[in-house]
């Protein structure tokens, strides 16, 4: 223990302990719908406690830089959290995650430089510092690239080139070798090179991954930042950092695996699969057939009649709904149909949209009654009794190829069996394939009708048409 372990230090350590307990309780409360909001509140109280305790720490002697940094960071955080659209949430989380990763990287850098200057750098200390810098740096650039892909600043398509995996592996090994060298013979120029390599590795990790897998990637990078935080905690001898960072690292890893499970993919195939590359070859054989087939288009009036005189309608929302901000229009349409005696339900695929739960959040925003949202396992056996399935901007999650076509890259992914419904109306901008880049057989089925256009416009037109009936 610290020889100058006085009463103040005791109080600070107790505050840290309390903060760690609040994080654990908060995280647990976040896993249940009833208590989730309180959980977030508990965790934020813990954070406030930890920050105030740190301000009292005797190691902190100058406040100017800290307070200035907190003012700037607080303003940016507040502004971006307030103004972000609900549809852009996933990329916002990615950016916040990248910030945390960047902070962990910088803290590690500063500690390394201090260690070199003071000659106090031990080998195990350097190891932990470099680990934190590596993971934090990868998380920073990986998250920023994920943000760019989801925001449409960078092409969402996987970036692949020949020998990519081998080259990445060689580069990764070289970075580790440099790290090992820096551990034994500390030096500042080498540190900068190591940081640059870490940042490049983050880009190399995310570049070959397509937009459809971004949620999994963000979750993975979230646990990366957690681990980087834990590493800085070990270096700084700060237990609350170790506990909280590890907590996020572990739960983030579990969450990543749960998401992969929902998509029936392994984490290995997400990270190393280069989804799009496989797809290009798969659609080579498939694409020609698609060109010969034609989809049946339906008019707004006909679609309105079908919906209004159906006994049961299941709405299948996807990312297109989020992009078009059509959730309020959808609820209006659903309420109109219910007044006409139609039973309306929503079928929620666990990975519809860009993040698990994305659709729930969106529909909850539009005040869609919670009991109407039905999970995939529960709704799938019911589809054969449903009159009309209304697919709004969903594609890969309703592609029957996942059940039947062994050559398809999404084969084995659980899907919503909308093709079992008596009729299917698909609202879509164009015949463009979905995120996985593969053609969808559903659109060419006899029972399927396409209503082209922006989802919000189409639904508003449907609302008008149903009203006029």
């Amino acid at each position: 223990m610290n020889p100058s372990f006085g009463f103040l230090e005791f109080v600070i350590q107790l505050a840290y302990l309390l903060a760690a307990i609040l994080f654990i309780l908060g995280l647990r409360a976040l896993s249940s719908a009833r208590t989730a909001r309180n959980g977030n509140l508990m965790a934020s109280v813990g954070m406030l406690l930890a920050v105030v305790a740190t301000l009292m720490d005797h190691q902190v002697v100058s406040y100017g830089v800290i307070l200035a940094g907190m003012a700037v960071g607080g303003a940016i955080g507040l502004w971006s959290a307030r103004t972000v659209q609900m549809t852009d949430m996933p990329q916002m989380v990615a950016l916040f995650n990248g910030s945390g990763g960047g902070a962990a990287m910088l803290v590690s850098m500063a500690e390394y430089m201090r260690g070199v200057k003071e000659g106090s750098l031990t080998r195990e200390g350097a190891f932990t510092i470099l680990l934190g810098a590596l993971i934090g740096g990868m998380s920073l650039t990986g998250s920023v690239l994920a943000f760019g892909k989801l925001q449409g600043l960078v092409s969402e398509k996987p970036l692949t080139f020949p020998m990519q995996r081998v080259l990445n592996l060689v580069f990764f090994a070289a970075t580790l070798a440099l790290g090992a060298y820096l551990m034994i013979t500390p030096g500042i120029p080498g540190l900068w090179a190591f940081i640059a390599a870490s940042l490049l590795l983050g880009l190399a990790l995310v570049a070959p991954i397509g937009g459809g897998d971004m949620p999994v990637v963000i979750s993975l990078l979230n646990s990366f930042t957690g681990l980087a935080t834990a590493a800085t905690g070990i270096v700084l001898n700060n237990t609350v950092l170790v506990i909280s960072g590890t907590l996020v690292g572990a739960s983030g890893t579990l969450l990543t695996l749960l998401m992969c499970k929902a998509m029936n993919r392994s984490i290995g195939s997400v990270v190393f699969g280069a989804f799009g590359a496989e797809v290009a070859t798969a659609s080579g054989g498939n694409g020609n057939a698609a060109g010969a087939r034609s989809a049946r288009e339906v008019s707004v009036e006909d679609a309105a009649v079908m919906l209004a005189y159906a006994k049961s309608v299941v709405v299948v929302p996807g990312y297109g709904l989020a992009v078009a901000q059509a959730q309020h229009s959808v609820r209006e349409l659903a309420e109109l149909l219910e007044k006409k005696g139609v039973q309306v339900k929503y079928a929620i695929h666990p990975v519809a949209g860009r993040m698990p739960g994305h659709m729930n959040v969106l529909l909850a925003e539009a005040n869609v009654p919670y009991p109407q949202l039905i999970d995939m396992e529960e709704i799938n056996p019911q589809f054969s009794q449903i009159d009309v399935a209304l697919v709004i901007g969903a594609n890969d999650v309703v592609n029957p190829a996942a059940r039947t076509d062994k050559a398809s890259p999404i084969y084995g992914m659980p899907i919503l069996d909308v093709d079992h419904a008596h009729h299917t109306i698909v609202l879509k901008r164009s015949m463009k394939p979905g995120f996985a880049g593969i053609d969808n057989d559903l659109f060419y089925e006899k029972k399927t009708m396409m209503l082209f256009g922006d989802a919000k416009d189409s639904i508003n037109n449907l609302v008008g048409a149903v009203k006029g009936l």
Partner: protein
Amino acid sequence: MHITIADFYILALAVFVGYEVISKVPVILHTPLMSGSNAIHGIVLVGAMLVAGKHGGRLDAVIGFIAVVLGTINVVGGFLVTDRMLQMFKRKPAEKTS
């Protein structure tokens, strides 16, 4: 700087806690949970403060400043965004018109 074995005990125990506390999360809460845990690793702000609060050279101050800015963005943005998401799960019975 010295690293004690106690750190690794804490690390190992926290792994189990992290795994256990969220093992029963329903799919609909995946996104808010990710966002909430994202805010919690913003605790790295404490590390940034410890670096920025030391008397050091100009480079240390610059690095400390940027680290505090990034850490604060992670904390403030993370918790607010999570709260905004969770707000939407709240039932509003008074609002029902139909």
